């Protein structure tokens, strides 16, 4: 019996292989599966799953950065994001302890990064001095400050904290009339920092390539004081495989983290609902009579309820978790295969072998589970495959309205964030295209598989 199953499976596979798009679908499915299995290595931000909504986690990323591969298509390339670790660390221990270190940044891009951040973690009493030396020799002194006791994080952003100092550094290069007309608090500080010191530095800065050397000098006061972390973060104009969103989150990581949820939602919903639907339909068709009438009435009630609206209202009222949402979808999805299954069951029932089994004394259960349901297995698999995209889309639609489960990352929620922060109107395509494309692609994957099975199951539709 078992060997026989294998043989059946093998013959099915032989037929399936003939349908080219079915194979394409299968390959895509495997790719998605691999994406889920190797989620860890694929995630560029390890804690995406748990800290997607934790803004602190993303502070070092640029906001609205385009994908890195945008640079392949443009002559003036965007600066990439980078984290620069200290070089040439010199520690002095005679008298006051002090540490000096360099952070050289080789700037070769056609456009400036979106921000430069100095990220420090210190403990105890410390005096700091940070300077940047540009290729043309101009020097920007960030700040000279001392911090008090306790441990703390320090983040100094050129764009947010240092506009006036940048202004002071380069204002001399501009026409005094123009320079004085500028409000130092409103200049494009990063552009100016990386711009040639010449006319137009505030309005249309021309990039100045070369090495920008940030020097950090820390004086540690007392025995307990120490420097825990020091790095210079270049928040690039492009970042990661798919760029970042308005909340600085890395979209690639979000997309990868969302893949497993799409698969879970899709597969679980379709599996449960199709299984229920098939058993329901077979039972209804097989028994006939009043059982069938009653089951039909119940079925008709469920089909008469518009699916998305009821799911929206249920979500709005009960604010379900993702698991409850899956159950909710199953409650309405199971009707999908019922009608077809019932009519197939009605036909199967008429087959003499059912009557023969009956005549041999087989119980209803045996007939249902040994004779009828096994025949529906291929159909069930096809309709499962075809139900997957629906489940994914419905979850995405509910998320799009803002009713998603906030503890997980789904593609629909990424799109909700995009839509609600006006990404459509600002043309932030890298925020909108990838998650939707992922939904569409996964839908297509299962459509390919399902349609392929459908073609095999209905030889009448075959053209040869």
């Amino acid at each position, binding site marked *: 019996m078992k060997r*026989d199953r294998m043989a059946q499976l093998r013959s099915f596979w032989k037929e399936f292989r003939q349908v080219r798009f079915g194979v394409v679908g299968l390959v895509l499915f495997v790719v998605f599966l691999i994406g889920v299995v190797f989620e860890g290595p694929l995630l560029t931000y390890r804690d995406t799953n748990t800290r997607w909504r934790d803004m602190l986690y993303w502070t070092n990323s640029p906001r609205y950065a385009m994908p890195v591969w945008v640079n392949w298509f443009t002559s003036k390339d965007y600066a990439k994001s980078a984290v620069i670790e200290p070089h040439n660390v010199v520690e002095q221990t005679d008298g006051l302890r002090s540490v000096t270190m360099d952070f050289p940044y080789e700037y070769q891009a056609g456009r400036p990064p979106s921000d430069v951040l100095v990220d420090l973690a210190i403990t105890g009493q410390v005096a700091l001095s940070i300077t940047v030396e540009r290729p043309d020799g101009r020097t920007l002194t960030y700040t000279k400050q001392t911090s008090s006791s306790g441990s703390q994080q320090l983040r100094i952003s050129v764009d947010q904290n240092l506009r006036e100092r940048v202004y002071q550094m380069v204002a001399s290069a501009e026409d005094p009339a123009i320079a004085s007309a500028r409000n130092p608090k409103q200049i494009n500080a990063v552009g100016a920092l990386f711009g040639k010191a010449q006319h137009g530095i505030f309005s249309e800065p021309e990039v100045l390539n070369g090495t920008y050397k940030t020097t950090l000098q820390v004086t540690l006061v007392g025995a307990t004081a120490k420097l825990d972390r020091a790095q210079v973060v270049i928040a690039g104009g492009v970042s990661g495989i798919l760029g970042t969103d308005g909340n600085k989150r890395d979209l690639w990581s979000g997309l990868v983290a969302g893949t497993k949820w799409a698969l879970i939602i899709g597969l679980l919903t379709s599996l449960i609902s199709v299984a229920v639907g098939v058993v329901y339909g077979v039972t209804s068709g097989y028994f006939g009579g009043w059982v069938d009438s009653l089951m039909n009435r119940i079925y008709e009630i469920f089909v008469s309820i518009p699916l998305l609206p009821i799911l929206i209202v249920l979500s709005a009222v009960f604010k379900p978790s993702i698991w409850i949402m899956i159950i909710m979808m199953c409650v309405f999805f199971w009707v999908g295969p019922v009608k077809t299954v019932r009519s197939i069951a009605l036909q199967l029932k008429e087959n003499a072998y059912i009557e023969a089994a009956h005549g*041999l*004394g087989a119980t209803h259960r045996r007939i249902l589970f040994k004779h009828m349901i096994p025949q529906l297995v291929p159909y069930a698999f096809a309709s499962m495959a075809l139900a997957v995209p629906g489940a994914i889309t419905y979850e995405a639609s509910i998320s799009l309205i803002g009713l998603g489960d906030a503890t997980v990352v789904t593609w629909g929620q990424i799109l909700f964030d995009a839509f609600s922060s006006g990404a459509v109107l600002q043309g932030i395509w890298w925020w909108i295209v990838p998650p939707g494309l992922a939904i569409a692609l996964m839908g297509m994957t299962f459509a390919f598989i399902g349609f392929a099975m459908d073609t095999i199951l209905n030889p009448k539709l075959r053209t040869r």
Partner: protein
Amino acid sequence: MSEPILVAENLTKWFPVKRSVTQVMRRERTWVRAVDGVSFSVEKGEIFGLVGESGCGKTTTGKLIMKLLDITDGRLMLQGEDVTHITGAALAQHRRHVQMIFQDPYASMNPRFTVEDVLMEPLEIHNVGKDRAERDVWVREILDEVKLSPPEEFLARHPHMLSGGQRQRAATARTLMLNPSVIVADEPVSMIDLSTRAEILAMMKQLQREMGLTYIYITHDLSTARYFTDRLAVMYLGKIIEMGKAGTLIDMALHPYTKALIGAVCEPVSGRVNRIKDVPIKGEIPAATNIPAGCRFHPRCLYSVPECWEEEEPTLADVGDGHMVACRRYREIQALGDAARTSDASLGLRRTA
């Protein structure tokens, strides 16, 4: 004369017709009178035939014997025991004793099963045989019996890998697995090619002789019925209208309906072209929901007289040698026919003129 193995007394099956709301409110009930009082008895080792046109209730009768349908009225006895309303264990027992061969060999086996699965099924259901090895031996024996040999070659095959004849053999083998006493064969060869039809029938006959089986052979085909059966009953609209030894019944039919049936059969003999010119019957079969009063054949009978529909329906009457007919005018009709044959004024000529 040996004991009858199966007795049907006034066997009746009425199906309710689905009613509309208004009919329910008016308390109207209509019935399809599929089997409407059928009585016969079958002896052990006999082949009993039930013939008739589609919708005459012959298949329903078969299913009543199988207890696949509930009996509305009447009595069914198997080996002297009343099995009319048995349920549960008794019914399961009944299903071991009575088996059925179905018309369509393509539909009578689950396409996903192998021949082995098909033959194992009855054993599994009734939990016969102590282990798989013993069952396996039986399966092989039976396959040999129905000449699907060597068995190894067929065990792993699926029904679609068998020819029509082989499939019907496998189906027959399945019925033999439980060593039944009665086999209901519902048109077992009608969908099988002519060249192998005789082979199947011969095999069935041989099995019957060897294993002492009793067949109830249901068919619309009078020719194979004559060849295959010992005794024959002709059904019309849910009732047996004539019954007797196969040869006698066909060669000396008494009921006008039987005569019409026989007259309508073609024969592979030359020089008899135009022979079926006269089919002594008129109209079409009425619906089983609306069975004519009196003799149910009267609207289509060429010989009917007012008493045929005014008086009560005639019952089967023995005319000697176990030949029974349900027609009140059979003697007169016989005389008419004889006269016509001698006086050259055959009905056929009259109609073509």
